[in-house]
């Protein structure tokens, strides 16, 4: 178990070196949610702490799901996958390594909206809950990204299309632009199916002290989504890996 964790860490280091420490990836991770956010928020009279909470939720969501979907197709194309498959590591270890790199990336990028909020006078009322939420959400969204990458293809464009088709609708149903309590009942039901809803709610709690769901429900929901996404990702990758070779 410890050996496999160490090997997952080696995969995470490899991923960071190859996929994450690239200017465009970092810039995309910050700019993409920022522009989307500004497009919907300019002209609306909303408090800064509400805006920053939403921006933070989106930043974690976009950064944690940005690279994990493309690692498996890229390594299929560059013919690195067979070497990994022949190494003494399980599919779970490979995926956990990919997830770990994504989580670190998500956490680091999440500092940008936090620092921006602090510069604008936002105070963090519950820093521990915020930190816990960011880490949990980063794991959860990274696992979600792994599900996208399980498609047995070497075409990153195919995976990115699939990923975008799921990611963008989620942004609109997760209480980022309109608070969940202001949504109609069907909207609230829909929001409860999105993991992004719960991290946004936790961020609002951390910055504003108020949230739609109890904190325990937010944390519990993120944990459940993480477990479900991880199990699905492992099963799908175990099935798709031989088809990639």
């Amino acid at each position, binding site marked *: 178990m410890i*050996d*496999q964790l*160490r*090997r997952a*860490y*080696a*995969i995470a*280091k*490899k991923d960071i*070196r*190859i996929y994450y420490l690239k200017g465009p990836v970092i810039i995309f991770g910050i700019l993409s949610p920022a522009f989307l956010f500004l497009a919907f928020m300019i002209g609306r009279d909303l408090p800064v702490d509400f805006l920053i909470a939403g921006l933070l939720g989106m930043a974690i969501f976009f950064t944690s799901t940005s690279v994990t979907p493309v690692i498996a197709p890229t390594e299929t194309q*560059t*013919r*690195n996958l*067979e*070497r*990994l*498959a*022949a*190494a*003494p*590591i*399980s599919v779970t270890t490979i995926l956990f390594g990919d997830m770990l790199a994504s989580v670190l990336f998500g956490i680091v990028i999440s500092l940008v909206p936090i620092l921006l909020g602090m510069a604008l006078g936002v105070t963090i009322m519950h820093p521990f809950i915020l930190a816990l939420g960011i880490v949990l959400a980063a794991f959860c969204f990274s696992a979600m990204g792994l599900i996208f990458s399980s498609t047995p293809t070497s075409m990153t464009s195919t995976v990115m299309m699939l990923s975008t088709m799921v990611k963008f609708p989620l942004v609109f149903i997760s209480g980022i632009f309109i608070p969940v309590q202001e949504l109609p009942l069907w909207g609230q039901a829909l929001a409860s199916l999105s993991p992004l809803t719960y991290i946004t709610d936790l961020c609002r709690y951390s910055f504003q002290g108020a949230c739609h769901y109890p904190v325990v429900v937010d944390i519990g929901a993120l944990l459940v989504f993480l477990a479900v996404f991880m199990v699905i990702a492992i099963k799908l990758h175990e099935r798709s890996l*031989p088809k990639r*070779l």
Partner: protein
Amino acid sequence: MKNVIEVKELTKHYNGLTAVDHIDFEVEEGEVFGFLGPNGAGKTTTVRMLTGVIKPSSGSVSVMGFDLGRHPIRAKETMGVVPELSNAYTELSAWNNLQFMAELYGVPKRVAVPRAEELLTRFDLYDRKDHAVKTFSKGMKQKLITAMSLMNDPDILFLDEPTSGLDVQSARLIKEMVRELRKAGKTIFLTTHYMDEASQLCNRVAIINHGRIAAIDAPEKLKMRIGGLQYVEVSFTAPVDVSDLSALPGIAGVRTSGDKIQLYTDEPDRTIRGLVDYSRSFDLEIVTLNTLTPTLEDVFVKLTEEV
């Protein structure tokens, strides 16, 4: 000698087709075992099952006493693998690729650092150790991939077409490394298309065709197995009609290779006399005339045509 690889009834079906069909064989400790077969015969599928990359449909593989189905991690820790279509991480340096392999195989850093230095020196890559692999030539990449497979000091090394497409110097270096590893007592499972390479390096070879093992034996014994087919190789100063030669007495078959003609026969003396008479009657001069025993390639062609 103990068996370090044991394959029993190994089978793989793909979409209703049988790629590997109930094959059995053993590889002994310290031998270089060649695995030959035409394209699509099931070589790569077999190697992928032996290295734990894909799961068999049925049958079992045991490596160094570990059942690959039940203890894949333990079994894989004893192996080094050079897959046929593998690549190093081109964005990383040679050094980082080697260290990554060491970490994947659980090699401690105090061992990994000197081993990487030794391998890079051995493969003449030390000066380029900090360069990204994307700047390497094909030969340099293949040498690095081979070095990567040795980072865990494996008991068994799987080499799938290790010299394919390489320049002469790089291919010689890799063949020399195989000989050294054999001397050091390592077991090598070598898949190759090059019959000369298999003949020079392997203690035993298995020939697979249509997913089944056509023969397993030492190269020389396999050659003896088709011993009836010796051949006389001849070349003349002027082109000749090959059909005239195939009509000579005792000829079982004729092949051309460049300006040389190979006449398969079990009566070489009678064939040589016939050739001399032929050259006289057409006023031709014989440039070369050799009596040869079958090569591993002949064995391969004969066996893969038979099955």
